[in-house]
């Protein structure tokens, strides 16, 4: 499903080049759940951004679902993100002026799915994350856990092949954290979706079938 070969990422900063990832290799199979571990600032989010096609200015080869990302045009990359990837961010990243339903259906706004069907699917997605009856609420009216549930619904609405979860429980209390994690695992398992969780927490990482550290990935 995902084949990353000899991936390097450098940032230019004040005439200096900062290397974030160096010679990274990774293979993830279809339907696999993987935790990528590492301390904060080591490049986990960068790796997820690269897999999501948000960051293409890299050295090395990234092939996802048979597509070599650096060969895709900007339009193809957008379609790839829209159809193949579901992203769950650490900060929820919901749009404050949109209701829970409108936030959940956001990816479908850029797809060919008719609007009526998109709303029905968003409603169903909110129900699947136990938010039925809250579709009209705005992010400011939701708790942290509820916001992340909306973000999960948004990530799953376009039935992606890959879910990328970047510290999905970092802003949640311990009680809510477990519930959110179980929900992500349950929903991805149901759909046989490939799941990559980037985290620095061992208990969270342990939920995945396979755990790797970012350092290990760059040693090979």
């Amino acid at each position, binding site marked *: 499903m995902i084949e990353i070969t000899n991936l390097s990422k450098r940032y230019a900063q004040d005439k200096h080049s900062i290397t974030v990832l160096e010679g990274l290799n990774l293979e993830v199979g279809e339907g696999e759940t993987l935790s990528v571990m590492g301390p904060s600032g080591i490049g986990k989010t960068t790796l997820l*951004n690269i897999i*999501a096609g*948000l*960051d293409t200015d890299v050295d090395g080869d990234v092939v996802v679902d048979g597509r070599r990302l650096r060969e895709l045009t*900007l*339009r193809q990359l*957008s*379609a790839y*993100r*829209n*159809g193949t990837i579901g*992203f769950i*961010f650490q900060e929820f*990243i919901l*749009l404050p*002026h*949109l209701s829970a339903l*409108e936030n959940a259906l*956001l*990816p479908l*706004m*850029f*797809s*060919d799915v*008719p*609007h009526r069907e998109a709303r029905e699917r968003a409603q169903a997605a909110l129900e699947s994350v136990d938010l039925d009856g809250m579709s009209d609420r705005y992010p400011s009216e939701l708790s942290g856990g509820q916001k992340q549930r909306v973000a999960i619904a*948004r990530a799953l609405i*376009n039935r992606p092949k890959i879910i990328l979860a970047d510290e999905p429980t970092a802003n949640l209390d311990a009680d809510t954290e477990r519930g959110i994690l179980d929900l992500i695992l349950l929903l991805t398992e149901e759909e046989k979706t490939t799941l990559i969780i980037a985290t620095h927490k061992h208990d969270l990482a342990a939920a995945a079938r396979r755990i790797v550290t970012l350092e290990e990935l760059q040693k090979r």
Partner: protein
Amino acid sequence: MKLEKMFLMSWQNLKRNRRRIVFSSLGVIFGLATLLFFFSLTNGIRTLIFDHFLEQLPANQLKVSSAGEDFGDEDIEAMAGIEGVSSANGLQLLHADSVVYFFGLMGRAAGASSNVICAGIEEFMVRDELPEGVDWSVDPADEEIPVLVNPQLLAAWNQAVSSNLGFRRLEAEDLGNVPMEMVIRYGRGERIEYRLKAVGLSTRAPIFGPLVPLEIIRHINNVLYADYTNTYSIIYVTCRSTEHVLDIEGSLRRMGYTDLGDTELAETINTGINILTLFLSAISLVIVVISLVNILNIFLINIMERKYEIGVQRAVGASQGDIRAVIFTESAIIGLANGIVASLVGIGAVLIAEPLLKTVLEGFIIGDFSVFVVSPWLVLAIVVASPILNLIAAFQPANYAARLDPVEALRI
């Protein structure tokens, strides 16, 4: 991205930024409304002058005025002989003092009198202005002579005379019911009298006097001064077609007939009005341009504030084209709304200003004519141009938004 969704997203964005959009749009609305107002004013002034105050010649006709000495039959023959001319007809002035008495304007007996300039013309020249059944070829011995009156005379009567002296107002159709008598005094107490009947209006008539059949003027001039029988102060040259007009105008000038009357006056007035229109439009356009720059700024500020949102949209699959399309749709909707509102405001201002201006200009001969003429084409142009101008203003901000790096945008 489907059209329906594009409109929906644009609408959501417009809704949440409505206050800022309304305030930033006020300038454009004001500018476009003043543009409509000024254009309608100058358009109205042009119509007022050309349609109501200046003699309107058919497109195939030229008016040649005598600079000093009157024209004679030989001039008519010379002009009629120019290639492409179908006829040349003279307008002869009455070479005597004449007074016209109007009766029944205040009470049954009371009337008014005025020294007038009287002119005669052939039926051919006034055929279009004569009501059906009116015979212009009268005999000087007839008891009643048909006359045509200049519309300005009627307006002057209603505006200046009737209101100030308490006479009754006259409409064009009332003229026929006002008994008129023209008295020409000459020699030692001798006089010629004619009963006149106004049958219609003509811009060819002298402003303060009647236009009568040419034979009447010829007859009176012959009785008084035989020398003036075949003299003309104006000759109307009718061309076979409008294509010949410019060539014939050139021929007339080469023959020494340089006073082509109202053509030059009309050109001068037209140029003056065009300059006024340009000046006033420039003021409005400056307002519009400044406001568009303001809209561009507002869009840029808006996009800076929406960076994060654009980052999220790009992250979930929006293409650069989708981002551009949403911003362009927003700007087109704003532009269309601005155009419609500006047109309504402009028309409203015209409706308010028209009676006010007429009150201020009460002493002038404006009568019932409109000072403003709102062209539907101008309204349409404003409604169409406004979204186009807004799209131009949104071009740079839309490109900026589309090119935002989603990773950078999400870091905010």
